[in-house]
């Protein structure tokens, strides 16, 4: 089936540094998402994105977070500066369409550890 790739699979970073998580969505998909899962907790929605714009975001999407997809390349989540509480697995997803008939396809996640 359609595959979403995430690079890197693991990232260790010092608190205060910047990190960029990369997502390679399904090739013909237009809608993109990030979810965050803290160890032992539920996966939670961060943000969705379409046509170069954030469509909606949750309260977890702090001011230090940003997303973009320049020129159809990777869909990225940037955290600057990072904080200890940003340690989590970040899952990217993409979908072809918007709304109740669509399916989100997920990547395997990037494990981020902030020291």
């Amino acid at each position: 089936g359609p595959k979403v790739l995430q690079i890197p699979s693991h990232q260790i970073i010092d608190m205060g540094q910047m990190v960029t998580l990369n997502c390679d969505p399904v090739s013909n998909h237009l809608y993109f998402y990030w979810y965050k899962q803290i160890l032992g907790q539920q996966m939670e929605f961060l943000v969705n994105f379409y046509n170069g714009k954030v469509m909606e975001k949750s309260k977890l999407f702090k001011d230090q977070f940003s997303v973009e997809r320049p020129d159809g390349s990777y869909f990225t989540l940037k955290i600057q500066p990072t904080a200890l509480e940003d340690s989590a697995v970040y899952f990217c997803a993409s979908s072809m369409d918007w709304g109740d008939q669509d399916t989100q396809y997920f990547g395997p996640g990037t494990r981020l550890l902030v020291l």
Partner: protein
Amino acid sequence: AQSVTQPDARVTVSEGASLQLRCKYSYFGTPYLFWYVQYPRQGLQLLLKYYPGDPVVQGVNGFEAEFSKSNSSFHLRKASVHWSDWAVYFCAVSLMSNYNVLYFGSGTKLTVEP
């Protein structure tokens, strides 16, 4: 509070035995419901999804789930488990007010014994 609950963090079954993984939700109205599976080092894959209609939904690999409005549940079932079903299973909900955000349960890790 609105939530998705998977009460069993871990389930172990013998190969060939039947399986039920439980999911309960607490949301107003009728949500859309999903089961995803995550195999080791892979992304979440959709097993099946429920939109208002027939309460029993068939999915891939012999999985099915039944929606119960009275019980606010969407339990996943399989008649005969295979060793390849060893994975983590996530129940998720989206709301009619916003289809594009999924709310996930905490997952159930399924172990299959020979």
